[in-house]
């Protein structure tokens, strides 16, 4: 893992304010997301973060990590 489990949990938690505020911010540039689209975007972001966090770092093996 690239970061500790505790840090990963916090990073995932940060997705909540990011997604909630992003909807308002995007509306300023006439991009209006529905609730469903926001939820899908949030889940997608969490998925990306999980892949990044769980992917072994370059030069390290699973057993070493």
């Amino acid at each position: 893992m690239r970061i500790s489990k505790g840090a990963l949990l916090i990073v995932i938690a940060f997705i909540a304010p990011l997604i909630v505020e992003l909807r308002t911010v995007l509306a300023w540039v006439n991009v209006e997301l529905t609730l469903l689209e926001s939820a899908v975007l949030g889940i997608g972001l969490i998925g990306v973060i999980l892949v990044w966090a769980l992917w072994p770092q370059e030069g390290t093996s699973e057993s070493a990590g």
Partner: protein
Amino acid sequence: MTNTYIESFPAEAKVVRAAFYSSFLALAIGGLFGIIQTLHRTGYYRFMDSADYYTVLTAHGVLLAITFTIFFLVGVFTWATTTSLDRPVEDIRFTWAWYGLMVLGTVLTAIPIFAGFTDSEMSASVLFTFYAPLQGHPLFYFGLVLFVVGTWLAGVDWFRSWWAWKQEHPDERIPLPTFMVLTTTLMWYIATLGVAAAILLFLLPWSLGLVESVNPLLTRTLFWFFGHPVVYFWLMPAYMMWYVLLPKISGGKLFSDPLARVVFVLFLILSVPTGIHHQYLDPGIAEGFKFIAMTNTMFLLLPSLLTAFTVVASMEHGARQRGGTGYLGWLKALPWRDPVFAGMALAGLMFAAAGFSGMINAGMNINYLVHNTFWVVGHFHLTVGTAVALTFMAVTYWFLPQVTGKALWSRSVALGQVVLWFVGMTFMSNAMHRGGLLGIPRRTAEPQYEGFEFEAAVGSVGELDAQIALGGALLTLSLVLFFANVVGTALNSRSDDLPANEYADTLSGPSDAPLVLDNLKLWTAIAIVLVIFAYSFPLLSIIERGGLFGPELTELPVSIGLGLEYLWVTTVSTVTAAGETAITIIAGVSS
């Protein structure tokens, strides 16, 4: 031997524990009322009459904003003075006496509030902001008086400890935690003069039928004289935890003791002369006085920004001690797995957002946009509801083992709890802020009107309601997890493997702080002068225009009228004399 607080101060640990448990009881009941009103207002689940909403709101506000916070902070302050002075309280019976008085005050206040749910004529559905024209049962005001007197005596207890310590250590600087307790207590003494005057001179005699009416604007102004600085009475213990505990948990030291002292001095002198910023829309107070209040309020950003800098610098120092590197890479080295750290860090982050919405509230012109709207509710759920409450819950996971001698029931549940609070409050407060921008009012069970619909700029009002209900549900679940941990820890057996009762060392210590920072008389005098500048003329003007007991009142009971007149003249002359003395002291120090 584990060197916990309960081993060093067994008698004091019992009082601190009792204060914490009292606080948690208030949190449980207040939190329950929170989810009830959330579901009622959003329309997702209604089982009571909307008229009872105000009783629920009063119980929610009083139990959380007054009882939960203040019981917790008196426990923290007692811990702070005994630990940092390394001495027990002077007389443990006195300590139990003020705690008992606070409990009695709470019970007496709660009786008329809860009676509001029954058919009884007794009620006090006057909200946390209990100024006129809403009138509560006399028992409500009497209980509040006892509660506040209990906190005053608690302050006396902490000052007694310091005075006794000073006799034995005449040349030493005040230890930082005790310094924080003393400055906060001095601020509280000044601030509560407003609410004491409002209750004892006006609201209590009025509810007892001794006077026929009151001047509503006067009671509102006296309430906000206390009502804004009470925010700092909650916040200062949270700041204390960020300064003395967070760096320790981060693995490092406090960046600067002198900066921490400056921050608490600034809060002592600036907290009280700001209350009128809650009354920007009140007719009867001239714009100039409101402008002074706004200026003072904006100055309060300074200690908050100093705190942000000092606390983050301390965290970075801790992270680098733990092997963290890089411009931002050090963030990964912080102990995010520790609920005490994670909770405080998340609370601090939410407080930054609260600061931004607070600036909107404080700005006199832009405040008109959000005044008395749901925005304000969103704001204070970020301040007292997160910066304070989440910090208190997070440090509970450190304090519980200290005051019980038992290991925490579950660190994983604790971590989940603080993260859940952060996420829940994000949903809830965001929707409240946005609702406020649409003009949706606060303090109502029925935020809808015939022939008119609020239109959301993004999404819909229904979506905002859903977001509030979701946030409220997550917050309630978080509370359940918190209480599971409190009860689980209480049921644990004693442990010999607990962290020692220590707080953070400093990188820049008290010897780097100018001696004048410890001159509490000077800072108190300046605080009083600022209060005189901010409040004398508005109060005189309000009384001159609306009378002490309202413009319509022609027949005043002679004894009360003469007594109040005498009291008013005496107060004005005393305050003026105090101001002149303060100016003399300031002139002496500056020359």
